[in-house]
C-alpha cells in the first residue's frame, strides 16, 4: 500500500502499463509537459516522445487516429484534456471506435482508452465542467468508468488499458489532489463492473460515483445526526454497472436515492431508478429518487455556480424525506 493522490495513482497506472506492454502508447495535447493537470508528469522523459506523444489541438484526429492505430494492434491511451473537448471527436468515438468491431463482423478489436476529465472545477463554467457519462453509457460497444478514489483510478485505468474494448475513462478534476491508499503490488487491478460499498447503512441506499461519492459520505454524517443511516454504493463502473449490488442493497433498505453531478434529466440515474423500480416494485418503502443538477449550463460566477451543485445537505434532506415518506 502506498498513500497517493488520484493524480499520481493515474500517472503510475499508465507508467506501469507503458513499461509492461510495448504496444501501449499515449497521445494528447500538452502531455509531454505533464498534461493540464500534471497527470502525465515525467512520462515523456521516461518513455520517450514516440510513446508519449504531444499532438496538435486536433481532437478528431487524436481520437480517429487512435482508432486506426488500435485497429493495427497498438493500444493507444488518448487524452482529451476536458470531457467537453471530447465532443469535437464524438464521430470518431461513437461512430468509429465503438462500432468498428461490430460493423466489421469481429475482424478487429479497438483496444483504446479515452481519458476525459469531467466535473465542476475551479469555476470553469459551461464548456469546462460537464459530466456527460450518460451519453457514452448509451452507446453499445463502449465501456464507461468513473473512479472516485486513487485506488480505483489506479486499478481501473490499468484494467482499461488491458481491455480489448474501447473504454471511456472519466476522471473528476476536483479529485486530482485527493489522497488514498493504493495497492501497487504486481498486476493488481480493479475489476470492471463491480461496485464498491463505501459505507454500510440500513435506511436508504445511495448510489453514486465520481465526484458524488465524497458528497454522499458527507451527507451520511449529516443524516446520521437525524437518525437516518445511508448505505452508499460507489458504482465506479457505469457500463457495465453492478446491478446486483444495487438490487441487493435496495432489497434490504427498501429505499433508493441516486446522486450524480450530471444534469438530472436523462442522466444515468434514470437508468438505475427505472431498473430498481422495475425489479423491486413490491419491496420499495418509498418512491425511487434522483438528485442531480438542474438542466442549466454550468454558470461561471461563484454566486451562480452553486445552482449547478449537488450538496451534502441536499442529499441528506432527500434521504430523510424518503424515510419519512407516507403514501
Amino acid at each position: 500500500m502506498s498513500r497517493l493522490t488520484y493524480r499520481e495513482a493515474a500517472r503510475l497506472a499508465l507508467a506501469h502499463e507503458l513499461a509492461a506492454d510495448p504496444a501501449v502508447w499515449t497521445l494528447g495535447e500538452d502531455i509531454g509537459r505533464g498534461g493540464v493537470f500534471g497527470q502525465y508528469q515525467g512520462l515523456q522523459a521516461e518513455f520517450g516522445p514516440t510513446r508519449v506523444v504531444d499532438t496538435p489541438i486536433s481532437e478528431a484526429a487524436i481520437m480517429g487516429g487512435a482508432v486506426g492505430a488500435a485497429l493495427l494492434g497498438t493500444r493507444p491511451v488518448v487524452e482529451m484534456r476536458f470531457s467537453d473537448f471530447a465532443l469535437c471527436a464524438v464521430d470518431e468515438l461513437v461512430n468509429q471506435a465503438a462500432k468498428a468491431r461490430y460493423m466489421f463482423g469481429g475482424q478487429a478489436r479497438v483496444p483504446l482508452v479515452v481519458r476525459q476529465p469531467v466535473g465542476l472545477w475551479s469555476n470553469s463554467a459551461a464548456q469546462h465542467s460537464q459530466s456527460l457519462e450518460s451519453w457514452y453509457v448509451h452507446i453499445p460497444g463502449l465501456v464507461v468508468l468513473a473512479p472516485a478514489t486513487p485506488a480505483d483510478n489506479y486499478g481501473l485505468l490499468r484494467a482499461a488499458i488491458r481491455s480489448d474494448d474501447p473504454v471511456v475513462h472519466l476522471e473528476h478534476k476536483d479529485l486530482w489532489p485527493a489522497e488514498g491508499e493504493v495497492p501497487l503490488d504486481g498486476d493488481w487491478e480493479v475489476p470492471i463492473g463491480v461496485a464498491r460499498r463505501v459505507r454500510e447503512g440500513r435506511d436508504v441506499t445511495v448510489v453514486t460515483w465520481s465526484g458524488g461519492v465524497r458528497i454522499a459520505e458527507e451527507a451520511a454524517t449529516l443524516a446520521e445526526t437525524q437518525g437516518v443511516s445511508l448505505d452508499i454504493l460507489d458504482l465506479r463502473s457505469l457500463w457495465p454497472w453492478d446491478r446486483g449490488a444495487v438490487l441487493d442493497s435496495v432489497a434490504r433498505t427498501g429505499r433508493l436515492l441516486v446522486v450524480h453531478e450530471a444534469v438530472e434529466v436523462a442522466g444515468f440515474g434514470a437508468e438505475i431508478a427505472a431498473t430498481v423500480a422495475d425489479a423491486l416494485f413490491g419491496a420499495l418503502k418509498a418512491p425511487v429518487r434522483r438528485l442531480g443538477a438542474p438542466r442549466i449550463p454550468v454558470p461561471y460566477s461563484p454566486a451562480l455556480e452553486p445552482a449547478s451543485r449537488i450538496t451534502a445537505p441536499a442529499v441528506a434532506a432527500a434521504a430523510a424525506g424518503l424515510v419519512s415518506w407516507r403514501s
Partner: protein
Amino acid sequence: MALPSSPPDAAAPDAERLLGLYATMQRIRVFETLADEAHKAGQVAGYIHLSIGQEAIAAAVGANLREDDVLTSTHRGHGHTIAKGADPLAMFRELCGRAGGTCGGKGGSMHIADFSVGMLGANGVVAAGLPIAVGAAHAIALKGEDRIAVCFFGDGATNRGPFLEALNWAAAFRLPVLFVCEDNGYGATTRTGSVSAGGGPGVRAESLGIPVTVVDGNDLAAVDAAAAALVRAVREGGGPQFLHARTYRFRGHTSSDPATYRDAAEVQAQLAGNDPIRRAAATLAGLGVTPDALERVERHEREALAAALATALDSPWPDLGTAFTDVQDIGAPQ
C-alpha cells in the same frame, strides 16, 4: 492477379500489366452493375453507392500496394475493396446480408471491410477514414514497419474538419500515408465547386507541405504510373503524398438516385468520351492487344461474378444470435 514487377511507365505502358489492371476494372464494373441490378430487384436491402466511372483509380492504386499495406475507404468503397484483393463472393454475401459476408452481414455495403487483405473498412461518414488511415500509419511508424497506409476519399470530404486535421498530422509526423482524392465533382448531389472556396484539394494539401500529384483519374496508365511513384516515395520514408485524381461518377449518389440535377450534356460527354474502361481498351488496342483478348477478360469477369452473386443469394441468412456478438467483451449484451 499477379502483376509484372517492372515499374509502370505512363509514356510506354506495359501491355501485360495494363491488361491485369483492365481485368480489375472490369471486375469492379461488373460487380457494381450486378449489385445495382440486385438492389433494384430487392435482393440487396440497403442503399449502395456505385463507383462506376471511377474504376481506374482503385484498380491502379490497388495494383501498387502490397497485401500487408492497409487502406481506408468511403461509402463508395466496392472498388477499393476489390482492388485490395477481397473475395467478391464474400462481398456479395455482405451486400445481400448473408452469412459468410466479409462482415457476417453486420456491415453491408457502407461498412464493407476485409482485414485479411488490409482493407480497414468503408465508412458511412464522409472524411472519417482520413484520421483512421493516419492513425494506422502512425502505428506502422511506431512499430518501425515498411508498410504504408492509403486513404481514399472524395472531393466532398475536403470540406470537413478531419481532412485538415489528418493531413496536418500526417505531415507533422511525416507518416507513411498516401492520400488519394477521387474528385468526381459532386459531394452527394451538390456540385462541390459551388460550395467550396479556394483552389481545390491540391492547394489545401500543398499549403501543409504535402506534395501533390494531379492525374487524369480515368487514364489507367497515368494513374498507375503516378501511384507507383507515390507509393515508392511513401514507402521510402518521405512522408505523406497526395494524389488528386480527377474523375466522374457515372451514376447517382446512391443507386436509387437518377442524378437529374446534373447537366445532361455534361453527363453525355463523360459517358461518351471519358469511360475509363473504354479508354483503357483503346490504349490496350494500341499496344497490340486484340479485341478478342479484351472480350475474354470481360466475359470471364461476367461469368465469375454472376456465379458469385447467385451463390451469395443462395447462402443462408446469418443466425439472429450473431446480432448480439462482437459488441464488446466487458458488459456484452446478455
